[in-house]
């Protein structure tokens, strides 16, 4: 209420940012699903002549100053003796082509949205150390990271919401048991557990298997934190008159929890969710280290972000920051959505 007075004229801009956020996420998810079509290359296609190649420059004006409607580019050639320094070879221009047939490969796509004729390469976002196209890897990587991050965070928060709400609402021994369990989960030597789990699994995990494993593990490990936070939010709910009233009408504990108590914690839970999604995308790196993540050459944002953890990459190759930029966008979008949901719930409009 106070906000309405303090912040003026933000209703419309809020709509805009909501639309932006939803649009951005929709685009990303579509991009992930349609990676086969949108990506100009397969995620594992290496071009060892172009390691750490910077993004190509799309040009419209040629050497003679003529303007072209169809953008074109030049081949980048690594300067001899200077690894990582590329110069354009202006001898021949390669126009960008649309709806090009895709060579048979791991990804199984038939047609790609755009491409250029060999030997030129269209690296719109540059390449990694193996000369793999960053854009393509980002798109394919989103398949795993966007879904696993959200699912794992969702699982953790859902479990946490349940445990925290029950503990805060019921109190007494149940509270004690749940909270002491959460402490145990927080204190547990997860690393060893995961190592032990890894040891009994077969050496080569199918991507779908490791995906599910990832989600399950992160969700199971992560519930304790949200649980404690939710409990904090819920604790005083049991004394509220309307909660008592609902119990008085014969509402079961489950019902009262669901309808009256949990909404108290929605704000905390949504905040946790928005925080956990990026954390879990990053956590995948740690899992890869234990052999539980996705294996090369399959890309994920997590492993792509891990590249940044090498000093030279971080300092020298700015285009390697793209996954971080996109993840930032994802975080902001999720946050905007969460915020909107919370507001709607608060206003009782949902």
């Amino acid at each position: 209420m106070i906000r309405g007075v303090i912040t003026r004229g933000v209703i419309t801009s809020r709509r805009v940012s909501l639309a932006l956020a939803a649009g951005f996420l929709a685009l990303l998810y579509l991009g992930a699903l349609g990676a086969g079509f949108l990506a100009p290359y397969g995620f594992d296609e290496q071009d060892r002549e172009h390691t750490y190649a910077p993004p190509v420059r799309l040009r419209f004006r040629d050497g003679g100053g003529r303007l072209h409607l169809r953008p074109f580019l030049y081949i980048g050639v690594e300067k001899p003796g200077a690894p990582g320094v590329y110069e354009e070879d202006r001898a021949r221009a390669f126009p960008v082509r649309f709806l090009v047939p895709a060579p048979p490969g791991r990804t199984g796509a038939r047609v790609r949205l755009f491409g250029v004729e060999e030997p030129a390469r269209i690296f719109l976002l540059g390449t990694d150390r193996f000369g793999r196209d960053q854009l393509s890897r980002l798109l394919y990587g989103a398949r795993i990271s966007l879904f696993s991050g959200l699912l794992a965070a969702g699982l953790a928060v859902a479990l946490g919401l349940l445990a925290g709400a029950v503990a805060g609402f019921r109190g007494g021994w149940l509270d004690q048991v749940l909270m002491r369990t959460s402490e145990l989960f927080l204190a547990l030597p997860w690393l060893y557990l995961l190592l032990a789990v890894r040891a009994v699994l077969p050496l080569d995990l199918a991507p779908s298997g490791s995906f599910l494993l990832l989600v399950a593990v992160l969700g199971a490990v992560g519930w304790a934190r949200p649980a404690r936070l939710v409990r904090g939010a819920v604790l005083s709910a049991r004394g509220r008159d309307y909660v008592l009233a609902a119990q008085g009408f014969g509402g079961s504990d489950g019902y009262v929890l669901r309808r009256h108590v949990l909404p108290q914690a929605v704000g905390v839970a949504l905040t946790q969710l928005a925080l956990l999604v990026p954390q879990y995308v990053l956590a995948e790196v740690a899992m890869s280290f234990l052999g539980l993540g996705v294996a090369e050459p399959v890309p994920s944002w997590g492993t792509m972000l891990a590249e940044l953890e090498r000093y030279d990459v971080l300092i020298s190759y700015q285009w390697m920051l793209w996954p971080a930029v996109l993840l930032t966008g994802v975080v902001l979008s999720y946050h905007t959505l969460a915020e909107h949901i919370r507001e709607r719930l608060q206003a009782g409009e949902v």
Partner: protein
Amino acid sequence: MRYVASRLGYGLLLLLGVSILSFLLADLSPGDATAEMRLNPRISPGAVAALRVRYGLDRPLPVRYVRWLRSVASGELGWSVAFDAPVGPLLWRRAGNTLVLAVTAMILAWIVAVPAGVWAAARQGSWGDRLGLAASAVLLAVSELVLALLGLALAASTGLLPAGGMASLDYDALGGWGRARDLAAHLALPAVVLALSAFPVVHRHVRAAVAEALESPFVQAARGNGIPRRRLLWRHALPAAAKPLVSLLGLSIAGLLSGSVLVEVILSWPGLGPLLLQAILARDLHVVVGAILLSSVFLVLGNLVADLLLYWVDPRVRGT
């Protein structure tokens, strides 16, 4: 008081449980403290086997556990295979260093994030708020490792701050004031990096909780009595929103010892981090269990503090 005592009792049980589980899981996971030596062609398998015997790694799990328990009881806290030394002295000094870093970072993070969050809650949708959200989104999207590396790059290129370590080489020659300045200079980088990585979490929780509290009718009513906005935010909304934040604080305390491992490794902070990382990879089990137990103590304390604070901030809960 009875409550506190019983919680501490549970805490002891937790420590016991965690130690048992650690031993069990470490036993199930591949490798042991001598395995790394096997890769060295200059060390014969016989020598490795002898080491295993010497440290009792060849004994059955329960025997090893009981031995460890005994050593804990004697204050040694187990025996490190890597250092061939009791674990206790290995941990204490480093844990102290870690605490210096982590506590500073935590204070820094909370001191900045709480006002920022409250401020943002009062001005939701404003440009300042959006900027804060965007900044915290960036911080969430890059790992603290990357932050630490950036800090390192900054220190190296500007030369304003030392690029790691905890004390200058001539630390011992400095006077009291000089030592404090020296420590502060070395602390600045890792503490800021850690604080930055903790910032988004606190900021967002504060913002969400205060925003929710601002919607409550009692804030409206207080406003009706002319309570100025600043006091509304700080005295009315923030305490009313404090419950999840108190839980968060408890979790922050719980993570004091374990949250700074990577930053310590990158910025060569002589804390538990490098030791622990090495011990985990090398399966120096007693060191790992010791560190786990130590941070479990903080976990228990943090949650206890949080629960006591929870009762303190909410009189409605206090009454029941």
